[in-house]
């Protein structure tokens, strides 16, 4: 088929009005609703600095660790000393405080450029577990703190942290008569949030490029659905699919060069396609009279998981792109399994599943098809894995309001993330943010 004929390509470099001060009602507030029964006690000592810093790094690090549900920070008021070097650290004293680990640190330099150094000690063994140093502009000191927290998390727990990450989400305010949709991006702790798009029409399905610099999303501006790709830092965007009918469910390939998407035919039937972003070539992936939508790439980029109701009810299927073969069904437990998101290691799918009359988040083991439910709401949807694969972020309903929630894949930790006004939905957890 002549793909370019099917997809008129529109290139816009629209400078979206970036609201300098986003309204405070849209700020995310994170609250742990369940933590591990014995969180690891850790003391994050205030960092020494030559000339003061605009950000209290130790406070950001400690809040990150506490928000993971796996650590309990020692309150500053109980710290007898604030050492900033290994030489000044009296481990016997910290042992008396019943803390297992101590983090000390220093910030060198002054605005606009700093260098952050930290060291981690095991109080029980007396061992220095390692040091971490990073340079950061004054505007990126919070990121440096999140990266330091990631280092500490990995040193102690053996798995990478997911603090130096961002969350994209849609905030919906107002009722049917005058509703507004706003797409935001915030740091994983809810801070530094910025408006990506503000619209009187629905915004759906934000998803990150694998390098974390761009978002693809669906916007109904002009009362027609279209898929846009927008660079987060500059707000420049391109309309990359605006065919008649549905343009939905965008998903970047792992190499970032292609976008899987759901398009409808003139008769309204929805199938999967893959768009090559450089050439604009469009390839059809499925051709079935049922609904095929919500594609998600396997980590190797060779296959897509997707939702299809070809068996009568929505279930998750996998199709291998290079081969001419029928999709293989991968979910079998329950009458409703949809919207798959694959874990970073490719072994599990997070899905929306129907259990006891409630829509919940399920984890499906790809190899065996075995599934378990990790959320307990009635209207949970939109799962998104943290880049470390430890936690799933999803949308839920609580007291009539749309909130976000997280559940750790091991079931030990959960949190609730809310906004002051309206509903928050369609969360997308970014890849790890790298320093620049």
């Amino acid at each position: 088929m002549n793909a370019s004929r099917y997809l008129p390509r529109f290139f816009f470099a629209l400078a979206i009005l970036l609201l300098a001060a986003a309204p405070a009602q849209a700020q995310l507030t994170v609250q742990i609703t369940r933590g591990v029964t014995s969180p690891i006690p850790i003391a994050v000592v205030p960092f020494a600095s030559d000339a003061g810093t605009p950000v209290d790094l130790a406070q950001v690090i400690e809040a990150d660790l506490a928000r993971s549900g796996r650590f309990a920070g020692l309150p500053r008021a109980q710290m007898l000393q604030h050492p900033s070097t290994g030489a000044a650290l009296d481990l016997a004293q910290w042992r008396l405080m019943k803390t297992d680990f101590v983090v000390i640190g220093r910030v060198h330099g002054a605005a606009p450029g700093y260098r952050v150094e930290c060291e981690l000690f095991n109080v029980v063994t007396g061992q220095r577990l390692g040091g971490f140093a990073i340079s950061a502009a004054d505007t990126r000191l919070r990121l440096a703190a999140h990266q330091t927290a990631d280092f500490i998390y990995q040193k102690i727990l053996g798995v990478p942290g997911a603090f130096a990450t961002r969350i994209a989400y849609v905030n919906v305010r107002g009722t049917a008569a005058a509703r507004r949709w706003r797409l935001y991006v915030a740091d994983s702790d809810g801070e530094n949030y910025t408006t990506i798009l503000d619209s009187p029409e629905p915004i759906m399905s934000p998803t990150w490029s694998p390098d974390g610099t761009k978002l693809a999303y669906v916007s109904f501006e002009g009362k027609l659905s279209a898929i846009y790709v927008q660079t987060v830092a500059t707000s420049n965007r391109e309309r990359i699919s605006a065919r008649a009918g549905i343009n939905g469910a965008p998903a970047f390939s792992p190499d970032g060069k292609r976008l899987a998407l759901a398009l409808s035919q003139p008769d309204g039937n929805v199938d999967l396609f893959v768009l090559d972003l450089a050439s604009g070539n469009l390839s059809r992936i499925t051709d079935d009279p049922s609904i095929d939508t919500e594609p998600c790439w396997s980590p190797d980029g060779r296959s897509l998981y997707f939702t299809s109701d070809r068996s009568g009810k929505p279930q998750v299927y996998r199709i291998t792109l290079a081969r001419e073969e029928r999709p293989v069904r991968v979910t079998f437990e329950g009458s409703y399994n949809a919207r798959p998101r694959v874990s970073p290691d490719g072994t599990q799918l997070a899905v929306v599943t129907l259990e006891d009359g409630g829509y919940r988040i399920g984890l499906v083991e790809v190899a065996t098809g075995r599934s378990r439910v990790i959320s307990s709401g009635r209207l949970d949807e939109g799962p998104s894995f943290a880049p470390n694969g430890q936690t799933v972020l999803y949308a839920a309903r609580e007291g009539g309001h749309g909130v976000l929630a997280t559940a750790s894949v091991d079931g030990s930790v959960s949190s609730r993330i809310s906004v002051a006004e309206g509903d928050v939905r369609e969360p997308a957890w970014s890849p790890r943010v790298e320093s620049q």
Partner: protein
Amino acid sequence: MNRILGITALVTLSVLLAACPGKKAQVKPPATTGESVASSAGTTAPAADATGGQGKELGGSGATGADAGVTKSTIYFDFDSSEIRAEYAATLAAHGKKLASDRTIKVRLEGNTDERGSAEYNVALGERRAQAVKRALALQGAAPGQLATVSYGEERPTAEGHDEAAWAQNRRVEIVYLGGR
């Protein structure tokens, strides 16, 4: 399965609407069909006239005047279904005839779902509903160029609640006149 039922319902509907004396198809009088043909999820939606004020039912399913029918502009659906209930036959006939009589009139058929389940699947389901209404109007003589569809999925509920009463109002296609009316 839904598709086959939907097509069956449409065929039945078209036969009903055409009221062609030569056809042998067994059809029930519209006045007796308060319930849809099959509810795929086993849930029974409340009567369609339990709406939140807009698009209020006229004088029951026996309404015959073409102009009377066009004032009802919302078609409601059962859970996970895009099948048009027989009670909307007269309404859709009236809309279809109005469109057939004036080619300058255009409508946008806005498909919607309730909030349950995943968002993009619901967009596809809403589109199916809009397409079902489109086919029904086309059978009455409306031209394809007069009928645009869009699906908002679960994004635009009219009822804010989170129970079956609200969901029944949100599973709908709104027939929005864009001109000539």
